């Protein structure tokens, strides 16, 4: 039972970490995109 618990816990930790990493990367790129679009708008003025 301990091995079963350990295996499932490990799998969920890996999956959660990856999902967190993906959402963090997506957020970072989107923030940078917003900042860059604002800069371009400013350069047009």
């Amino acid at each position: 039972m301990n091995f079963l618990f350990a295996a499932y816990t490990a799998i969920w930790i890996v999956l959660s970490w990856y999902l967190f990493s993906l959402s963090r990367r997506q957020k970072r790129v989107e923030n940078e995109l917003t900042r860059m679009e604002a800069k371009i708008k400013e350069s047009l003025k």
Partner: protein
Amino acid sequence: MRSLNWLLFPTLLLILISLYCIFIYAPTESSMGEVQRIFYFHVPSAWTGFLGIFLVFFCSILFLIKNDRAWDIRAAAAAEVGAIFTTMVLISGPLWAKPIWGIYWTWDAKLTSLFVLWLIYLGYLLLRRLLESPIQRARLSAVFGIIGAIDVPIVYMSNRWWRTQHPQPVMGGGESSGLEPSMLFTFLLSLTAFTFLFFLLWRMRCRIEESADRLEALHRELNTRLQEGK
């Protein structure tokens, strides 16, 4: 993220139903006991690990033929997600092996070829990080991905070709192979849930790369404007 909802909700639902089936619906296997339930995550993780390298192979070929960056993005995303699922196989396998075989790991053909697949994934991802030129990166990693996919049939067939510590396939492994109907249902459900999860993560990873490309284009546009303004 909003347009991923069509994939997110079925995935979550399938995972929840799978968990119910794995821990409540499926009977306890008579010889291995409760620890056999690792099977319902271990094999689907291996399947999605193979799916990842298959997509790398397929998208890399299309990239080399069409020279379209979209295929390079898809191949790179598939490699990253495939590496995650292969890592999960390498974690769940030893935790299943210890109570059954008495050891966590042995260098038999099946386990070694799977470990090689994991190294191929890492090599592919490392290559992409090390090469700075986007064209060189895309071309070399496509070639690497195509060659690397050769390992998959070896992993799959290894316990048929050689005598291994790893058991024979549960399905299609001869006369004594097969699963009890409720176990088979749970397994197929878990397999479907993992396939959906794979495609969800793959799409999410592709989007990041697409956004990064857009950002790169905006950087170039801004630099051009600034140079024109000088």
